[in-house]
């Protein structure tokens, strides 16, 4: 235990040092380049404070975050349902497998453009396009999860006549949780990148729209400012929501307490 405590004490300064090192390297590169298109960290910070002061930054961040959340929830819900059904019924798996492979390999841009053409330049089209890009990944991960369900626990639940709800909540979902977490983790990062493309192509607000705007003005400080601001938002979600939730849901694993400390 002494070893892991020592590692814990070092964790924060090491992480801080790493971030400072990155900023220093960036500042040095900006000085060496000495061009307007390569702004240093201070210029980006200056842009962010101005943009935050007039409320623009938070407005566009909030819009993008809402789209990410909507697409994420839809993709996770549909992807989990389809993936679990495919994992449990071999025939359905064979039937739908080619569709999943097709969707997995369809470029995100094609899906986005088709959604805008067929549905129109609307919010629904934007969210649908992002969700459609993510659903096949969730399906593939959750299909593996459903194949790994322990038949002995299912039999136990059958003998003790668990209701469908109790079976889902206490037997199936806890077994699927590691797979849902894996799909969610990779999904969040993928989705916000696709949301930016969707905003760039067919929305008039959000981080993607702003980046498009500043691209036309060749304002690199603004582009970097918006990108970094959204990365910060995602980091906050990871540390404030995802990791504590994971610790809570894994509390039954032996050694979970010492890992959490």
């Amino acid at each position, binding site marked *: 235990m002494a070893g892991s405590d020592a590692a814990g004490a070092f964790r924060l300064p090491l992480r801080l040092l790493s971030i400072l090192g990155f900023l220093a390297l960036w500042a040095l590169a900006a000085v060496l380049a000495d061009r307007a298109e390569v702004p240093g960290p201070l210029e980006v910070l200056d842009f962010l404070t101005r943009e935050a002061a007039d409320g623009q930054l938070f407005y566009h961040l909030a819009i993008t975050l809402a789209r990410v959340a909507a697409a994420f929830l839809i993709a996770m819900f549909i992807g989990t349902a389809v993936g679990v059904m495919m994992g449990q019924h071999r025939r359905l798996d064979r039937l739908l497998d080619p569709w999943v492979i097709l969707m997995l390999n369809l470029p995100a841009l094609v899906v986005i453009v088709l959604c805008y053409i067929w549905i129109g330049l609307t919010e629904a089209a934007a969210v649908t396009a992002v969700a459609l890009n993510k659903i096949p990944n969730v399906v593939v991960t959750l299909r593996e999860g459903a194949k790994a369900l322990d038949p*002995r*626990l299912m*039999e*136990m639940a*059958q*003998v*003790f*006549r*668990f*209701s469908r709800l*109790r079976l889902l909540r*206490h*037997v199936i979902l*806890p077994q699927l949780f590691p797979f849902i977490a894996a799909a969610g983790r990779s999904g969040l990062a993928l989705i916000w990148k696709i949301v930016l493309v969707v905003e760039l192509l067919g929305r008039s607000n959000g981080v993607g729209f702003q980046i498009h705007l500043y691209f036309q003005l060749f304002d690199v400080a603004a582009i970097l400012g918006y990108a970094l601001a959204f990365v910060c938002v995602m980091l906050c979600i990871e540390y404030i929501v995802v990791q504590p939730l994971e610790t809570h849901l894994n*509390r*039954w*694993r*032996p050694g979970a307490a010492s890992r959490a400390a």
Partner: protein
Amino acid sequence: MRHPGQLDVRIDSKIFRSADGAATQVLCGLGFTLSPGSFTCLIGPSGCGKTTTLRIVLGLDRDFAGKVTLSPPGLRMAAVFQEPRLLPWRTVEQNVRLALPPEEQGPGAAPDLDALFAVLGLKDLRARYPDELSVGLARRVALARAFAVMPDLLLLDEPFVSLDEHIADRLRHHLLQLWQARAATVLMVTHNVREAARLADRLLLLNGRPARLVGDVAVPVARAARGSEALGRFLDDLTREFPETVLA
């Protein structure tokens, strides 16, 4: 007032198919009736089809020729499997409570489990998770789960294996108590003939390939006298009559 169930089992044939398509008949012409409130042990050498029979009775294996009838229908059933089969992400107490029938799930309707946990020595472990328990303790939780249901029909598959003899004895005693208080119909699979003779009213002996019933013996010794020589004499007679099944 609930009534213990009568169980009619008729397995004409049970065939297992291996991956290469070869079929092996494991059970053939197996039939017995358990009268309400009786305690029966199914005995036989390991691998002869005892667990398969139990799985068919539990409704977990429907791929067989024959019929299993439990009457009256809708009875409460509980099982103790060979492995504890606890939900690792739920505490000991949650594992027990989750198995209770829906009408006993509500906070007001929940039965008091204190006495049960105390008898099984689980009082201080209610908030633990199964992976923190030894195998023996996990088996006790599985027994607690089956007892808490207060079943009309209780099926046990080698429930006392790998427990130390002192604890196994206490649990056997508790099983008898539950059976008497509840008047449940009990079917227990074991290869331990002494254990079977001490607990059961009736022994069903299973042997052969495919397995069939080779003996159906009522235990002639009163329960109060089972610590004595009378039981020893009965076991000697049984061994003489069914050497291949009892000694295997």
